[in-house]
Structures are given as C-alpha cells and as structure tokens.
C-alpha cells in the first residue's frame, strides 16, 4: 500500500496552467513589439557581447514586421495575465497558502544550502514544508516580477495618463528597459524551472496536474510528513517547540 498526500490545491493548479500559456503569449507578442525598436544589448562602448536579439533568433521565430499583430495580442492577453494573477494572489492570502510560499526568516540562509545540495556539493536538505527555501524565494520572486511587469507595462502603455507611475520608474525609456528586463528574468526562471522539474521527476510533476504526491505508507519521511500538515498547525507547533 501507498499513501497519497495532497500537495497543490485545485485552484493553484488552475492558476498555474492558465498562467503558462498566457505568459507565453505575452512574451511572444512582446517580442513582436520589441523588434520594432530592438536597441538593447549586453556590452560596453562599441563592444557587444549579446544583442537582443540576434537576427538568427528573430528569423527562426518569425518575429520581424509584426508590430501591429504583436500589439493587438499584447493588449488583449494582458487582461488575462492581470486577472489571473490578481485572483491568484488574493487566493494565496485567503487560503493561507501564502505561509507556504512566502520566504521566512530562515529562507535566505537555507536557500544557499538548497543550491549547494542541488549542485551535489552538499548532502541533505534542511527540513521543509511544501517548498524549500530556494523555491520560496524563486516562486515569490515570480509574483513580484509579475506585478513589476504589470506596473512597468502600464507605464509604457499609458505614460501620460499614468505619468506618476512612469516618473517613479525613472521615466518612459527606463520603464521600457525594466519591462524588458523582467521578461528576460521570466525566461531565465522558465529555463531553471523546467530543469528542476525534470530532475525532480514524475511524482512532483504529477502533483501540479493531479494535486497529490505518492509516498510509501510504511516509512513516512519526516519531510513529507511536515508538508501535509495544515499551515496553522505548523505555526502552532513551531511556537510550542
């Protein structure tokens, strides 16, 4: 016999799998828009280490000369991105799930141990609940980034009507740079996320679709045992111990 442990509530699975294609469409249509004024690069003076983006990249993804199309998709799907994100954050607060995902006092120090563990430098992980310290920081980071994309996006979209936001971000051109940088960070997050999910394996991936993880019924690892407890219980326990 085996034991199944509930991991991701249905609501969170919906938010996750709606966000994935919507964010993909936002990034793709953003590329179509960015191409019309593709001035960013990594480098100094006349030396360019990386041009955003190389011609081969644009050609391979069929990006050139599609500004109008990009804008139309961007300004339609922005609503889905914003609404899904807003409901998700609201849900985190009201369900108590935020306690499992927001970093706590120990997270910064522990995330370092997690990274050492993932790089096979250190054995063993600090005890964790649903997410380890590095996951807490990364996933909360994506929430902050999503909010940043929204705010910088509004500043570029209506810089005169929202000129206070635009000014706080350093002006129109800075807001565009920030919006672009956040997109690059999302792409980097995606790469790391895919690698980590692949390495972690089927049981973990299944939990984002089916909601549960399977653990042996007889020997319950302390890590999994912690993970299944109600957030409130965990809090009380910590206070008592």
């Amino acid at each position, binding site marked *: *016999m*085996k*034991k*199944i*442990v*509930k991991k991701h509530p249905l609501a969170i699975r919906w938010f996750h*799998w709606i966000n994935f*294609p919507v964010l993909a469409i936002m990034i793709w249509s953003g590329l179509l*828009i*960015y191409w*019309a*004024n593709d*001035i960013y690069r990594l480098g100094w003076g006349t030396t360019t280490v990386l041009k955003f983006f190389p011609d081969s990249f644009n050609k391979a993804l069929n990006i050139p000369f599609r*500004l*109008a*199309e990009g*804008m*139309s*998709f961007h*300004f*339609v799907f922005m*609503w889905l991105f914003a609404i899904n994100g807003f409901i998700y954050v609201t849900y985190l607060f009201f369900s108590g799930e935020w306690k499992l995902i927001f970093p706590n006092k120990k997270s910064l120090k522990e995330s370092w141990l997690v990274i050492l563990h993932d790089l096979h430098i250190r054995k063993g992980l600090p005890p964790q609940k649903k997410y380890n310290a590095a996951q807490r920081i990364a996933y909360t980071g994506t929430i902050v980034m999503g909010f940043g994309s929204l705010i910088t996006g509004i500043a570029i979209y*209506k*810089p*005169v*009507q929202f*000129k206070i936001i635009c*000014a706080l971000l350093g002006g*129109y*051109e800075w807001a*565009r740079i920030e919006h672009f940088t956040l997109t690059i960070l999302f792409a980097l997050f995606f790469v790391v996320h895919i690698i980590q999910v692949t390495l972690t394996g089927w049981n973990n991936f*299944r939990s984002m*679709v*089916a*909601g*549960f993880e*399977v653990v042996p*019924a007889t020997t319950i690892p302390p890590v999994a045992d912690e993970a*299944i*407890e*109600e957030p409130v219980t965990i809090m009380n326990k910590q206070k008592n111990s």
Partner: protein
Amino acid sequence: MTNKNENIVSSKDIRNKTVRAFAIFFLLIVAALFGWRWLNHQPEDNGIPGPLRTVLNGNENLFSNYIYSPHNISKAYSPADAVPRVRVNGDAGLGNDFDTAAWKLQVVRKPGDTLFISLDEIKALPKTEVIFDFKCIEGWSQITHWSGVKFSDFLNKYNLTSQSAMNYVGLNTPDKKYYVGIDTRSILHPQTLLCYEMNGKPLPMNQGYPLRLIIPVKYGIKHLKRVGTIFFSNTKPKDYWYERGYDYYSGL
C-alpha cells in the same frame, strides 16, 4: 494520527486518479490549442482577427471614458532639452507634386460648406509652444520642440464648437494618401497643436510643411504631417494605420 490531506490507497487507485487527472489535463490542452487556432482564423477586422479588434475597441472605451483626463499633461521640457536632429519616420501623404503657394487649410463645417484658411491667418492666432517627449509606436521617443496654434483655440476662433461636439475629428493630407481619425476629447487636449514651427523655425518639408498635427496624448502615427482637410464626424473617420492592424485609439 491521520491527516485529512493524506489517504492510504492501493496502487490501482493511484493509477486511476492519475489517469483521470491527466485525461482532463490533456483535454484542456487540446481545447486551448483549438481556441488559439479559432482566434487566429477569425475574419479580420482592419488587419487583425475580429475578437482582438473587439477587445481593443473595449480598451478604447475604457481608457477614453474613464482614464483619460485633459488635466494629464505630458511633461514639459525646456528648449535646450530638445534634440536638434528630429527623426523622420514616414513620408506617406508627402508627395513631391505639392504646390506650397496654393495651399490653404480646408475645414469642412458641414458637407458642401468648406472654410479655406491661409497659413498667415493661422499664424495670426495665439501661439502655443509644446516641448515634450514624442513617442513613436515603434518604441522610441525623442524630446522635440513645436509651436503653433492650440487646436481648441483654433476651433473657438472659427466658431467650430458645434462641430467639435461630435465624437471624432478627421484629418487628411492634401493628396489624401495619409489620413487619421482622432477622438474629439484628445483633439481638445491643451497640448494638441496645429503646428507650423519646429525648433523655432518653419516646418521642414519632410516634417509636413506648412502645417501638421502635434498631439502629445497619441503615438506619432496620429501626428499627421501636412494637413489638407479637417472634418468632423460622429463615426470613426478612416485611419491609415488602423487599416493596417493598429489600435484606432493609440492614446498615451
């Protein structure tokens, strides 16, 4: 102690639960792909799939009616901030067969009743200067320096207030090859100019001599160069870039 979040189950149960969850997951992926296909194959409305156009028009209603305010002014700069070399991005409507001497601004008060106004008459009106960050829909911007008559002053001077109670103002180049439509709210914005000077000198030919529109609450595509005709309408006038897939409102 058992927890309501855990269950002892058989391997068969686990398999069934997994299969059911992934079947639903797979169906949703297929539905999403069909939805995407459907969206991209809808009949086009001015260059983009109809449903996208519907949402863009909804965005226009939202921003024009509830967010836009004439009190939101583009940040004003000093003449020293303005770039000396102003970018020229398009020449549609600026054909070479233009007769500068014969030019007069035509204002259609109503069909069959057109007002002809010379450049000198326009220059005699109160002059307004606007130095602002000009924003192109491509994504670049430049601080540029323009002067001319405030559009609202012009409308008042020529008793066009009943016309400007209509929803839209249309502008065409003399050769009718470039044309824009603009919501009247934005036309009445205090920074909207019928402009005849750039950097303190008469407009160059490639910037729309003798008269162009400057409208800082819109992207550059709406700043029509070389105004030939102005008219008023309750329905959306033809718009060059709208027909090519862009947002009609294009407001900032």
